[in-house]
């Protein structure tokens, strides 16, 4: 336990000193926040409120980026080799990196909520217990995805390519950039296989519909299952040395972590209500023609 805390503390320190890592955990999320808040929502409280789900999801999902980069850099430079000489289990490395991520991302999430409250005068954030539960689950599961990426890639370049592919899929096919209901039907159906879609949907339900935890069962269970699978697989595939070879079917295992969402995607495509609910949340959102509540 002490090992995990020591490692987490050092990770936080190093991350705060590193411009790249800081970019992903603070600068990019805030840039997205202001872009959405001031440009897309034109600073109107109701519109910002509708966009808070996607904004927070950017912040949370971005965690996998810094995490995978740090792990791969440390392995490439032989830093993990030095750690390996000490009595440290792979699980300590994994848990400490996720723990550090909570402490790096949660302040940004809170900052965004406060900015929304005081800059854009958003008064209602829905069910905050649900919101924070989802945020924590999101940091865990998207962080774990970063660990899986780090465990199956060998060089920084490889990691960056995979990260970018994942990132674009996550933000464009999930409703994070363009609301799900506005995407072509075909894309919506693909989106139903992505964890990001459920994550954003969960956040929006919690914030716009006041959804309590018990009504978000499907989202919570799938995120938990995904995180558990990803953490388990990344601890199995954890490599301390750049020379260490990947087991032959490692990439297959990595892809297998997405299993909960493949099952959920199939089910949702058959008889789910997510797309309909998501579309309703969008049509219910205040438009430009709706006079702002405050002005009345």
């Amino acid at each position, binding site marked *: 336990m*002490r*090992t995990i805390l020591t490692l987490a503390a*050092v990770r936080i320190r*190093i991350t705060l000193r590193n411009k790249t890592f800081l970019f992903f955990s603070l600068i990019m999320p805030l840039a997205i926040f202001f872009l959405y808040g001031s440009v897309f929502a034109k600073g109107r409280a109701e519109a910002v409120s509708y966009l808070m789900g996607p904004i927070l999801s950017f912040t949370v999902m971005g965690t996998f980026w810094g995490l995978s980069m740090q792990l791969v850099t440390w392995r490439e430079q*032989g*830093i993990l080799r*030095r750690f390996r*000489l000490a*009595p440290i289990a792979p699980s300590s490395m994994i848990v400490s990196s996720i723990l550090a991520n909570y402490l790096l991302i949660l302040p940004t999430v809170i900052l965004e909520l406060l900015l929304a409250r005081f800059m854009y005068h958003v008064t209602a954030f829905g069910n905050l217990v649900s919101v924070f539960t989802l945020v924590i689950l999101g940091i865990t599961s998207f962080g774990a995805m970063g660990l899986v990426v780090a465990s199956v890639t060998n060089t920084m370049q490889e990691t960056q390519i995979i990260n970018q592919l994942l990132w674009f899929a996550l933000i464009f096919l999930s409703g994070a950039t363009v609301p799900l209901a506005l995407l072509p039907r075909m894309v919506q159906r693909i989106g139903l296989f992505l964890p990001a879609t459920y994550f954003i949907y969960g956040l929006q339900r919690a914030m716009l519909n006041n959804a309590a935890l018990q009504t978000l069962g499907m989202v919570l269970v799938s995120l938990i299952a995904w995180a558990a699978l990803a953490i388990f697989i990344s601890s199995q595939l954890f490599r301390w040395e750049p020379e260490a070879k990947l087991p032959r079917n490692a990439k297959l295992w990595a892809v297998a972590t997405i299993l909960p969402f493949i099952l959920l995607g199939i089910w949702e495509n058959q008889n789910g209500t997510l797309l309909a609910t998501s579309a309703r949340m969008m049509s219910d959102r205040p438009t430009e023609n709706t006079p702002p509540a405050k002005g009345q």
Partner: protein
Amino acid sequence: MPNPILLVENLEKRYDDVHAVRGVSFSVEKGEVFGLLGPNGAGKTSTIEVIEGLRVPDGGRVSVCGLDPQKSPHELKSVIGATLQATSLPDKLRVGEAIRLFAGFYKKTRNPDELLKRFGLEEKRGSFYSQLSGGQKQRLALAMALVNDPKVLFLDEPTAGLDPQVRREIYTIIEELKAEKKTIVLTTHYIEEAEKLCDRVAIIDQGKVIAAGTPRELKQSSANTTRVEVRLSKPASNGALKNLDGVVDARELDGAYVLHCQRTAPAIVALVKHLEAENNELVSLEIATPSLEDVFIELTGRRLRD
């Protein structure tokens, strides 16, 4: 005879197409400085990393302080300290933080500040790892290796790539540790390092121990190899000198020629005859006692390092 603190028996290590370690055996007593001497690629690092529990052996037996590195890696890592060859720390980690971080991984630790002071890093405590020189990085690596007050210290090529002055600094540190009766296992391809620091040396070549003993014993064992240094009035060809009767190796060194001879007398006779035929003259001739380098040449017919 006391129980050895480290025992290696018939160790084997293979990589895809390379048989890196082929049945290496040796043992190290408590308080001893033991050296693995050999050229690059001889299997030294593979051997030491199997002992440290970083690599899985393909055969043989290893016991460190009574522990099997594969069966009890955690316990093993708590009682050993090591410096590695290709390793690093995060650039933005400060010296003081680094040693305290590693101290945090062990139950039993030495005072990190004292270690920094002892290794002359006190003033560098607040510096980032990336700001350290090669010698400072190596001193920090040594300080970190001692943070758990290990029973055995493994130093893999502790002075490789360092300039001569820094190398001497590291020697002084290792000699101090030796005076404190620390058990040390080091690998090196520097002859002087092995001669100067080690109580006993195993010479490794192509994955095998080809000779072992104290530096003195090893040198005595090759009493019939001598090092003959000659100066000539005209340049001669190394190849021709090397082909002389009784000569194993010849090379040019600062205007002189160094011949390693297995049979000294016939070699000198052959040399004189050769010079006569070439119309060359002997300016000076010096016969030196063998060094560990000569031992290596005698055993392998090759020089340790070019």
